[in-house]
């Protein structure tokens, strides 16, 4: 057993954090005007390199946490600097690492680049930290830390109603987080009362015995934070304002990455910590998800502003992710995890393009744009591709995720899947309508003068396009890494909730994964705990 020597995950968090500090410290006058931006890009590229290394080192077919680093941090409080990565977080980390440099390049700040770059780097550090934290307090800190830079990005570099949007975003998500903090403290104390050990580490806490009511309440507390962050219907009303008032970079990062903190949080924490409550309340969450899919699409149909249209389309997409999550089976959850990545790539592409349209035309009102395909065929082509991916045309990435989600849901909760499937029709309606208004038709003189994408811009979207196509045609390498972790989670949920799974649907199990991989004794205890006798014993204890 070779221990991982290089602290990959800690580097993922620290590189951008240190970068942010350096950018913030170096005074503007001391260096050339481009210095801060260039440094920012270098830092994000270095982070990308680390993420790429993580991808390479990551062992396929293994369900448990890998590359774990665990250090006592605040011993008295039981808080650990505990990081780990598995198939569920791996591609979110990679997505984050890919999108940050592209965003820095594609959506630059018009003024005060130093602060802008510093906030963006801090945001990257916080996002990375959130995705790799295995300690609940550590997660909470990173989760909260994302708020500060995004608040300043919206408030400082946003558009006309940025002040309102920033405050609304901050207060709303922070209110949700308050519930999360209470929930974290509560479960740690319950765990302490049962074992005598105060810890916030997820692998330990997931074996806490909870009564039905405790589980439901804590689930609600956690989910409140995540549902707002994602956002899941009906907690979404901050998002159209925030996305449309945020500067392009802010919007991309909010919708493509930070939104995933919410859905990731549900999968990582809700399902692991409160399997019983997750199953009990699944119909409610499935209903909210389905309403989100249909409602988001409907409202998108009536938008007159490209950014708001995309914001509501995102609500529908997040609905799909939540739907797959609460299908609570391999297909639905794997689809949900994959769709987080897919949605990130697609929506980032669309928001970057919309940002570029704004740069050219100073508007994103659908009514003020017409016939852009004539003067800007490449822009139109890239937009079409991303749109088709979002609609779920097979051959592109969106289909694979959507398909897995829907089929997983169909097996578990048929009628929700039926309604959600009908929702894909409306997605085609509003996206094609928006596309027709903006890109089709005879361009006016002003429209005809719209410049096509520059070479640099083509290079920026090229990696996104490649990933959108690649994940649509050959998602196997990604799914091979996601599925074992998802299966581990599904087995955990099934065992704790004592749900009999028909033999033909039982996950083909990640049990082949070596128990003590990378010295992660954690995973051993997880696998050990899911012995069939465990759930009944738990029930007995709680009574």
């Amino acid at each position, binding site marked *: 057993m070779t221990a991982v020597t290089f602290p990959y995950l800690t580097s993922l968090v620290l590189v951008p954090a240190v970068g942010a500090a350096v950018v913030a410290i170096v005074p503007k006058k001391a260096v050339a005007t481009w210095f801060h931006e260039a440094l920012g890009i270098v830092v994000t590229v270095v982070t990308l390199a680390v993420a790429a290394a993580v991808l390479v080192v990551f062992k396929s077919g293994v369900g448990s946490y890998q590359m774990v680093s665990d250090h006592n941090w605040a011993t008295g409080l039981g808080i650990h600097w505990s990081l780990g990565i598995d198939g569920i977080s791996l591609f979110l980390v990679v997505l984050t690492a890919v999108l940050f440099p592209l965003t820095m390049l594609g959506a630059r700040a018009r003024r005060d680049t130093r602060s802008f770059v510093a906030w963006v780097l801090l945001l990257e550090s916080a996002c990375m930290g959130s995705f790799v934290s295995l300690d609940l307090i550590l997660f909470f800190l990173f989760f909260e830390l994302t708020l500060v830079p995004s608040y300043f990005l919206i408030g400082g570099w946003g558009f006309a109603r940025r002040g309102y949007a920033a405050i609304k975003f901050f207060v709303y998500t922070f*209110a949700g987080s308050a519930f999360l*903090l209470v929930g974290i403290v509560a479960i740690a104390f319950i765990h302490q009362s049962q074992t005598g050990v105060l810890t916030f580490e997820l692998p330990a806490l997931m074996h806490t015995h909870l009564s039905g009511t405790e589980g439901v309440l804590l689930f609600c507390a956690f989910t409140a934070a995540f549902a707002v962050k994602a956002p899941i219907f009906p907690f979404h009303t901050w998002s159209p304002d925030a996305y449309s008032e945020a500067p392009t970079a802010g919007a991309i990062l909010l919708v493509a990455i930070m939104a995933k903190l919410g859905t990731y949080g549900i999968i990582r924490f809700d399902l692991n910590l409160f399997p019983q409550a997750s199953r009990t309340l699944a119909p409610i969450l499935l209903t909210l998800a389905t309403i989100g899919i249909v409602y988001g699409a*409907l*409202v998108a149909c009536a938008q007159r502003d490209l950014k708001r249209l995309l914001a509501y389309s995102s609500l529908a997409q997040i609905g799909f992710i939540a739907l797959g999550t609460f299908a609570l089976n*391999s297909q639905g959850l794997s689809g949900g995890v994959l769709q987080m990545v897919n949605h990130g790539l697609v929506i980032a592409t669309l928001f970057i393009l919309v940002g570029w349209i704004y740069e050219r035309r100073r508007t994103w009102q659908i009514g003020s744009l017409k016939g852009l395909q004539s003067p800007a065929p490449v822009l139109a082509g890239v937009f079409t591709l991303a749109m088709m991916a979002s609609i779920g045309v097979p051959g592109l990435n969106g289909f694979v995720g959507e398909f897995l989600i829907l089929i997983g849901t169909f*097996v578990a909760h048929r009628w929700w899947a039926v309604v959600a499937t009908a929702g894909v029709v409306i997605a085609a309606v509003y996206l094609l309508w928006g596309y*027709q208004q903006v890109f089709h038709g005879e361009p006016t003189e002003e429209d005809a003068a719209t410049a096509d994408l520059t070479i640099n811009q083509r290079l920026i979207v090229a990696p996104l396009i490649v990933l959108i196509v690649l994940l649509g045609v050959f998602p196997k390498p990604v*799914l*091979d890494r996601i599925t074992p972790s998802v299966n581990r989670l599904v087995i955990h949920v099934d065992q704790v909730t004592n749900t009999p799974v028909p033999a033909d649907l039982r*996950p083909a199990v990640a049990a082949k994964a070596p128990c003590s991989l990378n010295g992660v004794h954690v995973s051993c205890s997880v696998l050990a705990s899911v012995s069939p006798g465990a759930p009944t014993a738990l029930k007995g204890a709680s009574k």
Partner: protein
Amino acid sequence: MLHLTYLIILLPLVGFGILLAAGRRLGDPAAGWLATIAVGASFVVSVGVYLSLLGVDAPVRSYGQNLWTWIPVDRLQVHAGLYVDPLSMTMVLFITGISSLIHLYSIGYMKGDKDFPKFFLYMNLFVASMLILVLGSNLLVTFVGWEGVGTCSYWLVSFWFTRDSAASAGKKAFVYNRIGDVGFLLAIFLVWSKVHTFDYQAIFANIDKIGSANITAICLLLLVGVMGKSAQIPLFPWLADAMEGPTPVSALIHAATMVTAGVYLLCRVNPLLHASPSAELTIAIVGAATAFVAATIACAQQDIKKVLAYSTVSQLGYMFLAIGCGAYTAAIFLMVAHAFFKGLLFLGAGSVIHGLHDEQDLKRMGNLRAYLPITFITFAIGWLCIAAVPPLSGFWAKGDILDNTWAAHPALWAVGIVTAALTAYYMSRLTGLAFFGKDRWAGADGGPTPDAAYAHHADGHSSEPHESPWIMTVPLWILSFFAAVAGVMAISGSRFSLANWVDPVFGANLFHNNLSSSALWVLAVVDGVVAVLFVLIGLRLWSTRSERPALEASFLRGAWYINELYDTVFGRPSERLAAFCADVVDPKIIDGAVNGVAGAFRGSGSLLRRTQTGYVRNYLVGIMFGAVVILGFMLTRMWWG
């Protein structure tokens, strides 16, 4: 060379790739030639594969090829797999063959268009998608092609996107198809939830596990998908609008290939249909109804392409009628024959439109046989084929369907024969208006020529109609040859016999009508007499006069007002619902509640006054929330603990 099957798809895909990278540099006409060669090469490989397949003995005449694992999640395993058998091979042959001809034709038709390379880019991608559709070894690969052709159809229908009507038509086609796709997807889900496979052969092997109610549900859900793609009632209105696309697109996608995908799919799943008589009956009724309704609409259309579009809908209805009767071979026979003669008719119409500088109004044509002799002769062959005049292919193909319908559902046969009469009539009306009678085309009397804003051939022709260049007439000749002689496939026992070739695919699921030879003779005579009679009536009525309002009821011209109906029942209410959600529910109710809560907190403490920094205050709000929740939690613990 069966193992080269993947090349059939890869070649047009390579063409697409090259055109994507360098289409603009290749330009007009090199891009068109490249695309044509790519599809032509695919045809050559198809013939090779066909010959190899002939070498395999009949009962096991099939070949499977797994290319890679596409979506693997636990027990759900989707492979990118191909499956060749006489059914898919028949499709591949006529798809690649006709596509090659239409690509060639397009080099002439699209000459001078500013997006010439892009046209061929989409066309090559379309052909690749269509081949994926028919060669897929499982439902999901078929679905990839299914959506791929739909997407290409969207691009090609709205090819002249600066025209609002074209842009809207593309969108409409896509959305109608999406509605159908919901059915297709749900069918896939239902299949998987029962047998945990998508592979056709594995599904059929495990058909007992599905249960008869579920089989019926699967068939009907697939039928919904088919209604969208193959423009059957109630999802047919998009096809007429799709005529906004360039005419070669109408010929290839909206007549010969894409719209027949539904026929192929239902033939492919014949064991499921066979297990569900109620689904079969539903398909037969939908098919017969569509055949009739579309034929009545075609009788009153004024746009040459719209007549052909509704005619296509009607002919597809026949094919579904055949499938509903279990006469799969008959359906395929008509599909192949229809691909020839309808492709021919569309290309002929394109030649007319081209010759008249973008005139599509039948009332402004007339006497074109004097100006476009080649177009006229070839078009006339297509016309007599579709009218089912013996001994041309249409007579045999339609007769085959009607015979089986007579044996299975006599009432539907009556609908079928009435539709056959209408078909002969409306096609003769079209031919009469376009090629006979007086010169009515713009400029015939020295009047203005039609607006040529989208003219793609600004090559200085006079306003007089002109015959098309060889590159367009050669495909017409070839197609008219096949349209005329495709009837030989009906001769049982011959080497061209379609039944010998595809019947083994369907085996015991195939319906045998067991009609006596005298009954068959009588039916054939009835078909022939009806066809000839109504051809004469139609020609007689419409080659002399171009205005007969009594025969063009506005109800039929308005296509039974189906668009208006959908608009009233679905379109406008959903628009209102969307507006209500966007203007009332979201800002007032949901966000209103959020702001109400925020307002309550703001009002409740003087600490929470407006401040510049914004976020100290917010932390306080958060802490308050937290405290409330902790208190609440402790209380519940006390009560339930």
